[in-house]
């Protein structure tokens, strides 16, 4: 559950993390003239894929500076899609390093890298257990309401108990919404029986019944000229969506057919719903009727999913949600530690406690170090390496496994301090690593005032510093010291001591 929440929290900044992890695509000039970009993109698509039945233009936005064109050779098969990334100012093609970027955290968050081995079921069970824990936690800590707003920091155990209870209360709505909406995502997996009984094709058919979509286009035998000037359509769109850079994406279906369709997708800024607002036009430039409103239960599901993903969030709200996610991760971690601590104090030490203690260290400290190693691998692995994206994930998993092995041989408290020190130091040093690998990226980011890139670097340093402060606090309260004889790691030990 800690892993699910931590990686899910990082997923709030999925585009920003991907942006940092693909430095070749970063530092693009921001172009606000969406009409010019659309016109030029369609002209380029006409050259690159004149016979493709679907063209797509993903426009750069404040969060996602990547400007992408795509075309699909088969309208029904999404796998037939080819994508290219471009520079928005001169339309030159750029190729970025192969990486999963922030998407890795998003996928890990609901599959645990076990998609084919029931990972989503595991996450579902964990979410259900968490909902139970949420309410049982309120019952367990009901006396806390008498001492509300109380934090006692002098004692590590009391401080941890108070902060656990307080965070549990303040993140209650957040926790409930996330666990409940998380279950709604894969309701079809967790409870397929009802739909399977009522419909021949199960949930797929049920979805078709309750969801609304644009009418499917069918090709005729005649051809028409491709629309190259979208000024009329963009003006119509801007009348309905007046905010700046309101168009996130454009899809041009059957471009050379009289039955063609142009669909504009709005950026998700003003709606909690996970479904994007769309406007569609025919090849004559006429606005087509709006999509029918969905049924209330489906709308409620979409709102919960929208709340889960928080695509609507402004930077301020996204940071607040990030802190709430971090607080929830802390809540789970402190819960795990407190559970063990109380039993260790009361009962005689036995194998079960030792196993839980090692798993706690691996699950919490090991995961944080693995995340830091994933970022380091992004900069250190050669760009030309085959299956590079997989290699980054392997580094993440190996680091985690190494921590598990180390937890069997090193005294727990020492390992806690060492892990916090190593993770903190690695995160603090990430911007320097970035600078040493290629100093142009950071310098250009400063020149272009690319806050997405610089923000990531600053966040790494702050997160690292926070972990080092926690490490110092733990070390002081427990008296743990690190003595490391390996010269390479001596500075970590010196700092920690």
């Amino acid at each position, binding site marked *: 559950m800690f892993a699910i929440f931590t990686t899910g929290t990082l997923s709030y900044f999925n585009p920003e993390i991907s942006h940092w992890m693909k430095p070749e695509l970063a530092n693009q000039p921001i172009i606000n003239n969406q009409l010019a970009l659309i016109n030029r993109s369609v002209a380029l698509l006409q050259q690159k894929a004149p016979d493709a039945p679907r063209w797509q233009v993903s426009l750069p936005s404040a969060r996602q500076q990547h400007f992408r064109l795509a075309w699909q050779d088969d309208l029904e098969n999404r796998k037939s899609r080819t994508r290219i990334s471009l520079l928005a100012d001169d339309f030159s093609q750029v190729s970025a390093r192969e990486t999963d970027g922030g998407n890795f955290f998003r996928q890990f968050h609901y599959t645990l890298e076990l998609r084919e081995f029931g990972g989503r079921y595991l996450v579902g069970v964990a979410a259900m257990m968490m909902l139970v824990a949420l309410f049982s936690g309120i019952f367990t800590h009901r006396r806390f309401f008498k*001492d*509300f*707003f*109380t*934090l*006692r*920091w*002098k004692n590590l155990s009391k401080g941890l108990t108070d902060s656990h209870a*307080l*965070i549990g*209360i*303040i*993140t209650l*709505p*957040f926790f409930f919404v996330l666990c409940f909406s998380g279950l709604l995502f894969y309701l079809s997996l967790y409870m397929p029986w009802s739909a399977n009984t009522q419909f021949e094709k199960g949930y797929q058919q049920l979805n078709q019944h309750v969801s609304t979509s644009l009418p499917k286009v069918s090709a005729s035998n005649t051809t028409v000229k491709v629309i190259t000037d979208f000024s009329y359509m963009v003006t119509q769109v801007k009348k309905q969506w007046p905010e700046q850079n309101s168009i996130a994406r454009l899809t041009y279906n059957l471009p050379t057919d009289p039955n063609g369709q142009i669909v504009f997708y709005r950026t998700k800024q*003003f*709606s*909690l719903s996970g479904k994007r607002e769309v406007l569609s036009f025919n090849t004559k430039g006429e606005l087509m009727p709006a999509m029918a409103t969905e049924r209330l239960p489906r709308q409620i599901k979409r*709102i919960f999913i929208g*709340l889960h993903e928080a695509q*609507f*969030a402004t930077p301020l*709200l996204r940071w*607040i*949600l990030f*802190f*709430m996610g971090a*607080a929830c991760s802390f809540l789970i971690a402190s819960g795990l530690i407190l559970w063990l601590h109380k039993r260790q104090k009361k009962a005689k030490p036995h194998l079960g406690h030792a196993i839980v203690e090692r798993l706690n260290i691996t699950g919490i400290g090991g995961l944080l170090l693995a995340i830091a190693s994933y970022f380091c691998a992004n900069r250190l692995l050669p760009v030309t390496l085959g299956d590079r994206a997989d290699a980054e994930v392997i580094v993440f998993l190996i680091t985690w496994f190494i921590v598990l092995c180390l937890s069997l041989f090193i005294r727990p408290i020492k390992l806690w301090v060492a892990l916090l020190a190593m993770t903190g130091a690695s995160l603090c040093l990430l911007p320097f690593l970035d600078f040493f690998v290629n100093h142009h990226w950071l310098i250009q980011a400063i020149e272009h005032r690319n806050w997405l890139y610089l923000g990531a670097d600053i966040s790494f340093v702050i997160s690292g510093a926070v972990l080092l402060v926690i490490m110092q606090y733990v070390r002081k309260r427990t008296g743990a010291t690190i003595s490391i004889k390996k010269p390479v790691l001596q500075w970590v030990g010196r700092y920690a001591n």
Partner: protein
Amino acid sequence: MLTSYCIQLVAVILLSLSMLKHYRDAFARPLPTKVAKLLKLIGGLLLILSFYCVISTEYPALHSVYWLCFLSLNIGGVAFIHSKLGRK
């Protein structure tokens, strides 16, 4: 939004001060029952007012999310301040 946030912060402070322990830490004197009730009442009303400020805007659903997030932040912040006051 900012108005709502400020009202909410005041509300949370008043509600926290309506508790004997925190009132004593802040003002170094016992909390009279009447004052406690008054603080609770004003705090509660201000909390409702801050929510009203949020839902009377153009995007009430969106701003309700902000309101809840700010509420968590405010409670966390006030608890932190009280923990500092308690130490003294």
